[in-house]
């Protein structure tokens, strides 16, 4: 791989040991990919938290050790300097204000707080959400990023027209310290055109339907780049967030185009870059029902946990949850957790939404989610969620039964303790 003089100097240690280890990793990684060179980035989103039980023994040796091993793949412990470029923390395993509800040992929560302070002082912005684009990190079109988190990557590429591959803990750490990432894959113009066509034949408008369409698309195209045609409604941020997260879960979609909606596809022809369109994959009523059924992994209709907010809820979603719960009371055998970034939780609190949710017996959580933390309320057997992504992962990870449905169905189940949802 070709390096610039500045990159060669970093590799040779002119900017310190940590930068040298970072450049060494980027070279090994870039050469494995077959990348010709690195590209500059000033926007990194990674995972630097040290609060999982398997990392605890490392964190006890200090956070330099955690970063050296897990974010740089370094054989020795190096002192971690300030990040070279703006870097943010994605979702973590612990809600530092609700850790007791999660069943987290207070010493582990303290370690999380200490880690946040350590990494914060080194320039890592503690956004602590899977949706940095909801709390101020909104890349511009064409901007080169080094982001982790599949649901954030697909959003940044597709909806914002920024450019990032799915990075990992080590490459994001190295990018933060060097401001470089391999110039490969979706960073290059020629790799950003659609190569699959989805023809939507039914009305897709409400939130659950956007998740279903996304989940179908991921299954149908795996890690290809679909263009979605035949849409009759312009989706909002939160609908695109649900669609993308679902497509990235059932498949490995990192970029999609919606002609007339997303920035790199004014028309269907633009999406394909002038190439011939492939045979369309049709999404009709039959495919919708089959997708709905594939998201259900429960038989038992008595539910005891409602998980909302995956990816983390927007403020508009928080308002809707509050509106639907207003004046109601959650069944005594059911726990309801709503997940939203801390910054949005503050707006929800000021707007009175949190008060309504709590009065109904629900909890507003931030920083984490049950799939990432692997922590659920005690004694949970059956989960219901309005998220296709969470329905895909959480039952498998936690060995529980899971229902997927609309927000209205989830709220109804929260109140009655019984799942009556089905494809409407």
């Amino acid at each position, binding site marked *: 791989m070709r390096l610039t003089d500045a990159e060669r100097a970093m590799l040779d240690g002119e900017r310190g040991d940590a930068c040298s280890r970072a450049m060494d*990793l980027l070279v*090994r*990684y870039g*050469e*494995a*990919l*077959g990348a010709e060179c690195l590209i500059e980035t000033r926007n990194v989103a990674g*995972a630097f938290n040290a609060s999982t039980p*398997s990392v605890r023994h490392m964190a006890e040796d200090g956070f330099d050790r955690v970063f050296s*091993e*897990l974010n740089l*793949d370094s054989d020795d412990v190096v002192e971690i300097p300030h990040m070279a470029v703006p870097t943010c923390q994605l979702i973590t395993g612990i809600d530092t204000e609700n850790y007791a509800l999660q069943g987290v040992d207070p010493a582990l929560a303290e370690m999380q707080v200490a880690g946040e302070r350590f990494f914060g002082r080194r320039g890592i912005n503690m956004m602590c959400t899977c949706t940095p684009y909801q709390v101020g990190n909104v890349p511009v079109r064409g901007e080169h990023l080094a982001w*982790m*988190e*599949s649901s954030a*990557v697909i959003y940044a590429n597709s909806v914002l027209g920024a450019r990032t*591959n*799915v*990075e*990992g*803990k*080590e*490459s994001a750490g190295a990018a933060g310290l060097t401001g470089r990432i*391999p110039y*490969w*894959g979706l960073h290059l113009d020629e790799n950003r055109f659609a190569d699959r066509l989805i023809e939507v034949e039914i009305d897709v408008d409400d939130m659950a339907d956007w998740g279903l369409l996304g989940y179908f698309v991921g299954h149908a195209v*795996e*890690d290809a780049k679909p263009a979605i045609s035949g849409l009759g409604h312009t989706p909002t941020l939160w609908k695109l967030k649900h669609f993308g997260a679902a497509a990235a*879960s059932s*498949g*490995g979609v990192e970029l999609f185009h919606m002609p007339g909606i997303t920035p790199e596809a004014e028309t269907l022809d633009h999406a394909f870059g002038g190439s011939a369109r492939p045979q369309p994959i049709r999404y009709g009523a039959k495919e919708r029902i089959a997708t709905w059924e594939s998201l259900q992994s429960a038989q038992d209709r008595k539910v005891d946990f409602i998980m909302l907010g995956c990816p983390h809820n927007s403020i508009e979603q928080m308002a809707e949850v509050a509106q639907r719960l207003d004046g109601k009371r959650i069944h005594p055998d059911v726990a309801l957790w709503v997940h939203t970034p801390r910054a949005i939780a503050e707006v929800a609190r000021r707007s009175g939404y949190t008060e309504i949710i709590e009065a109904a017996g629900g909890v507003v959580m931030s920083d984490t989610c049950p*799939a990432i933390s692997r922590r659920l309320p005690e004694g949970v057997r059956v989960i219901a969620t309005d998220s296709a992504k969470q329905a895909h*992962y959480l039952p*498998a*990870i936690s060995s529980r039964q899971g229902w997927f449905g609309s927000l209205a169905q989830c709220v109804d189940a929260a109140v009655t303790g019984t799942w009556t949802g089905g494809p409407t």
Partner: protein
Amino acid sequence: MTDTAEKANTIVLRGRGIVPGKATAEALTTRQTISGWGGINEREGTVIELRHELRGQSFAGKVLVFPGAKGSSGWSAYWHMLRLNGTAPAAMIFTRMSTKIALGAVVSRVPTITELDRDPFEVIETGDLVEVDADAGTVTVTKPG
């Protein structure tokens, strides 16, 4: 065994080594991609994904032959943990390049080869003895019996 018999049982494939090193072990092959986070148990080196054909099987110490990675961006972190836990495959052979598999292979430090001159799924079966020489870019497959 005579030289001729040995050759009849041995197939050599050539490709591009992406993580250096050399290892010989029994093959474990799957035509299904593998998830990192949510798809494997990193303490045991087993596949846990509910609908995966290798569910419950261990790839620790084997030559893992698979199309590549899927799922969460936590892929490399899980392959990294496999190395730290001593439960990584002995070597890896894959066919579909992605940032997840490239970074995961690099941090697992396991000899890894891709871009082979023949479809490895048509040549390598579970139980074959496979030598991966990522420095030379060769895969030597010996059929049992």
